[in-house]
């Protein structure tokens, strides 16, 4: 047998790109963009950003009601996510090429405030983001956990921890908190418990669900969200084991298709089952599927709907007319050689009022505010609305500007 010679480790801990990692240093060019583009003059809100909640799992588990599940998460050798949060196969960090994955653990922060607040403020300040809607990372796959009771227990503990340890402590950070859609009666309780908490601006359905979004058991969830005036976010995720994606052999393939496919499925059910007619005051935001899927789906559904209106009797207008009234997060915005397509997309979705900037930071395909600000066909007002104004309206935010912007304004 011929053995392949050992490959060098191209991303060892001693590589200068990884050792002594610091978010502010990594993003120094982002800060320069923020200054060059005068972001100090306007409010920027990022509606989809993340932290790695599993790094705080021992803290989160203190908020868990079920002592047996708490023990499962805390027992020797299991501290991490074993048994509680599904683990995804896939090289998000591109085998170390995206250095912030390996570097994050080495970043030094002061004892207070909470580590996640410091790390979040650092990237926000570098990018020129004033307020951020913060979401978990591994828990995006929690809805695929085979034990619904674990999903509910983790979700409740996380939401409590997030509200008390993060949202209460920093008015620049908000969240749409986790909604365990697979257990509708628990999801209703979750809305009651968290809708009025500080920093909660909506609720979040994550990834692939065990039942379709239009299932009758979900109706009370939507009614309750409508009563509270709380938007519902559909945060996409890939699920490699899904039968339609299982033939894909590469991470790039399943990621490129899986995120869009997830929201294509939910949106198709949502629209064709007349959910916007049944819950006309419920605002929905479709998160992290890029933008190219929206015109595709609008055209597909409109074309078939006009031939088969009897299949979708609840609709009073074309599917695209409903979709145009919904909200979309921008990341990962498709920007390679497609200016004309992008302009058409923006028109088709009424982007100037319906699109909300999102970074997805610190994930590998994150977008800076310049991905919106530098779009040549947008006017200044449209740029500012997409970067912050639309989020301010949707979430009824009281904007909190970052300190460095306020100081820069004073300095003239």
């Amino acid at each position, binding site marked *: 047998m011929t053995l392949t010679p050992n490959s060098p480790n*191209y991303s060892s801990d001693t590589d200068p790109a990884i050792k002594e990692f610091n978010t502010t240093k990594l993003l120094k*060019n982002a800060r320069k963009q923020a200054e060059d583009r005068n972001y100090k003059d306007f409010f920027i809100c990022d509606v989809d950003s993340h932290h790695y909640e599993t790094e705080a799992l021992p803290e989160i588990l203190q908020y868990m009601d079920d002592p047996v599940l708490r023990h499962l998460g805390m027992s020797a050798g299991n501290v991490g996510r074993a048994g509680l949060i599904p683990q995804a196969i896939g090289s998000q960090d591109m085998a170390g090429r995206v250095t912030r994955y390996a570097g994050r653990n080495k970043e030094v922060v002061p004892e207070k405030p909470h580590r996640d607040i410091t790390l979040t403020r650092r990237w926000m300040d570098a990018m020129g983001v004033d307020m951020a809607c913060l979401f978990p990372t591994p828990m995006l796959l929690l809805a695929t956990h085979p034990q619904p009771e674990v999903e509910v227990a983790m979700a409740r503990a996380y939401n409590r921890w997030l509200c008390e340890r993060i949202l209460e402590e920093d008015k620049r950070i908000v969240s749409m908190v986790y909604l365990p859609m697979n257990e509708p009666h628990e999801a209703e309780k979750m809305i009651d418990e968290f809708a009025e908490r500080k920093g909660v601006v909506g609720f979040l359905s994550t990834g692939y669900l065990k039942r379709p979004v239009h299932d009758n058991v979900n109706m009370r969830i939507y009614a309750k969200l409508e009563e509270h005036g709380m938007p519902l976010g559909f945060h996409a995720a890939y699920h490699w084991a899904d039968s339609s994606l299982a033939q894909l052999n590469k991470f790039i393939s399943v990621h490129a298709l899986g995120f869009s496919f997830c929201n294509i499925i939910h949106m198709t059910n949502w629209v064709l089952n007349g959910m916007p007619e049944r819950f006309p005051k419920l605002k929905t935001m479709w998160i992290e599927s890029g933008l190219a899927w929206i015109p595709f789906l609008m055209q597909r559904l409109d074309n078939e709907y006009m031939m088969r209106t009897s299949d979708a009797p609840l609709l009073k207008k074309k599917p695209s007319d409903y979709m145009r009234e919904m909200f979309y997060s921008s990341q990962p915005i498709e920007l390679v050689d497609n200016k004309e397509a992008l302009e058409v997309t923006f028109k088709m979705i009424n982007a100037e009022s319906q699109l909300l900037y999102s970074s997805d930071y610190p994930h590998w395909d994150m977008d800076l505010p310049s991905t919106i600000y530098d779009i040549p066909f947008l006017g200044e007002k449209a740029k500012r609305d997409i970067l912050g104004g639309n989020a301010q309206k949707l979430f009824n935010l009281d904007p909190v500007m970052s300190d460095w912007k306020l100081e820069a304004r004073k300095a003239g």
Partner: protein
Amino acid sequence: MAEKLLCASSDISDTTARICEVEGVEIGVIRHKGTIVAYRNVCPHQGGPVCEGLKMPRVCVEFDEQRRPLRQNFDTAEMHFVCPWHGWEFKIETGEAVGDSKIRLSRYKVVERDENVYVEI
């Protein structure tokens, strides 16, 4: 075009790009295949510090006689700068993006003289 001192020749390694600032512009400089190359430390994608990421070889695929992949391998004859923000890769030798050769890093002409390295800017 003005010639500016970048650094001493001895400051430049063939393993890690040295980042120098000249008139407010960061330039990554590295010795590659016996030649000194210098690029602006800004990725044409979203502006990341492209010269500060990992240096990695091209990934290639080896086939058998029926064009079935046998394995992937690293081709160390073609080394890349990998932008740490998003993973865009650029050939160190030419500055071309691996995914689209029309996209390039901004390159500076470099002169090595009297054990110092100068850049035209």
